[in-house]
């Protein structure tokens, strides 16, 4: 469904991604793991049009995305839950969710809202609260919920477990699996939490200083000696 073909992305002429190619198939959870500064965020920003693509192509179901602007890419069904959440702190929880469904009809929006509140009862309780006053974990839930509100074809999550307590981290990964299974949502998950990501991912890529160095099934990579040594401290 999504093909990233040999892209290069630069900051001030310095490449942050070089010759990166990957594929996400319909219904999959695909992980991209790598340590801090590897280029994970840059990859998602390139796909969603926040960063220009210098070389290569990004194709979604035959449509080239790399020439489009962010809002057009969103209209093609790509939802990007940015790193650090990027919620609208001065708007209410409900308004944040409505903004997630900006391109949807009212009926679609209300239907999806029920689903999001079912997944995150906390958000329902706090729906009229200013988003900036939520706890860190709740803000993560809101960011993911807002991504779901778009009813995307592919949901991209940038380190959804970053900075959360272990209990909440488990909850987030369970949720990722749940929306993939129950809603059939295709997910591209970018993470530093290698163990848990590889447990939920159907397939995964390992990104190191701007280049992909390994790819394979989630389980397969968990057993890979190289991955174990570099990321799992074994």
């Amino acid at each position, binding site marked *: 469904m999504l093909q990233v073909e040999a892209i290069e992305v630069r900051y001030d002429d310095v490449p942050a991604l070089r010759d990166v190619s990957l594929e996400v198939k319909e219904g999959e959870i695909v992980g991209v793991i790598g340590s801090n500064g590897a280029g994970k965020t840059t990859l998602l920003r390139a796909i969603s049009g926040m960063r220009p693509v210098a070389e290569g192509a990004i194709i979604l179901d035959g449509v080239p995305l790399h020439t489009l602007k962010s809002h057009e890419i969103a209209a093609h069904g790509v939802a990007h839950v940015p790193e650090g959440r990027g919620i609208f702190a001065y708007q209410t929880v409900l308004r944040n969710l409505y903004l997630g469904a*900006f391109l949807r009809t009212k009926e679609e929006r209300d239907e999806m809202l029920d689903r999001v509140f079912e997944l995150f009862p906390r958000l329902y309780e706090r729906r009229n609260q200013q988003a900036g006053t939520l706890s860190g974990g709740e803000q993560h839930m809101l960011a993911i919920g807002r991504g779901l509100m778009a009813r995307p074809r592919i949901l991209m999550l940038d380190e959804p477990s970053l900075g959360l307590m272990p209990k909440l981290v488990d909850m987030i990964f369970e949720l990722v699996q749940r929306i993939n299974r129950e809603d059939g949502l295709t997910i591209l998950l970018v993470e530093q939490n290698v163990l848990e990501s590889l447990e939920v991912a159907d397939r995964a890529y390992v990104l190191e200083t701007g280049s992909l160095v390994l790819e394979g099934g989630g389980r397969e990579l968990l057993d890979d000696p190289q991955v174990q040594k570099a990321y799992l401290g074994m």
Partner: protein
Amino acid sequence: MSPEVTLLVQSLVSGLLIGFVFSLLSVGLTLIFGVMDIVNFAHGEHLMLAMYLTFWMWYLWGIDPLLSLPVVAIALFILGVFTYKVLIKHVLDAPMLAQIFVTFGLMIFLRSLAQVLWSEDYRRIGDTWVSGRIEIFGIFIGLPQLVAAIGAVITTGVLYIFLKKTRTGWALEATAENKEVAGLMGIDTERMFALAWGLGLASVGVAGALLATFNPISPEVGAVFVLVTFVAVALGGFGSVPGAFVAGIIIGVVQVLGGFLWEPRFKTVLVYAIYLGVVFIRPQGLFGQR
């Protein structure tokens, strides 16, 4: 009522009335700033253009300012979108100094243009539908001022409801808070920028048509209002529409009270004193979030 009290109430009322017009002007400026972090230094000159447009429609074709008001508002809306597309769009990612030069240059250009085209002469619109005054409990209220205040309040209210209750208004507010994330939601942020300029200048258009009914018009008229407007925007909190509204009223009242208690030529001093107080005590302004 004793003459002093009457005079005081009289001053308060006129300060309040002009304050509403300040509010509308400030809302226009703060809207543009809030959405895209650019200060429109030509705000006063856009007001000047609106007032001349009103004047010429009255002078040449005898159209009453109240009738030309919607035309002026639409013309200024279009001018705002045009200004965004032709000038502002190209300096969005430029350093702040470049952005300042663009709108500052526009200010000088428009003022010079007005001097060349229409001379330095003061112009005045004579009889209008709203000429005259009314008396309530010994207080005289100029009808043009009263109508201007009412018009300004209605326009500000409509703008506020638009921002809070419509999908496009939400998109504008989302763009104001975080344009990158707004783009991820599917909002065309460049269109929102153009819209902010359109609405910002349309507010000025309405204010200009209303002010033209009683305020003399000259190429420099913008300078008189724009300083007060900038103070109101800072006092209300950069980017805050309710803040600009409240601050406009406060400044209108403070100005006349300053003139009443002190000396008319010092009235602006008090306004700046308040501004300095804000800068030191609450730099983010009354309603500012950032």
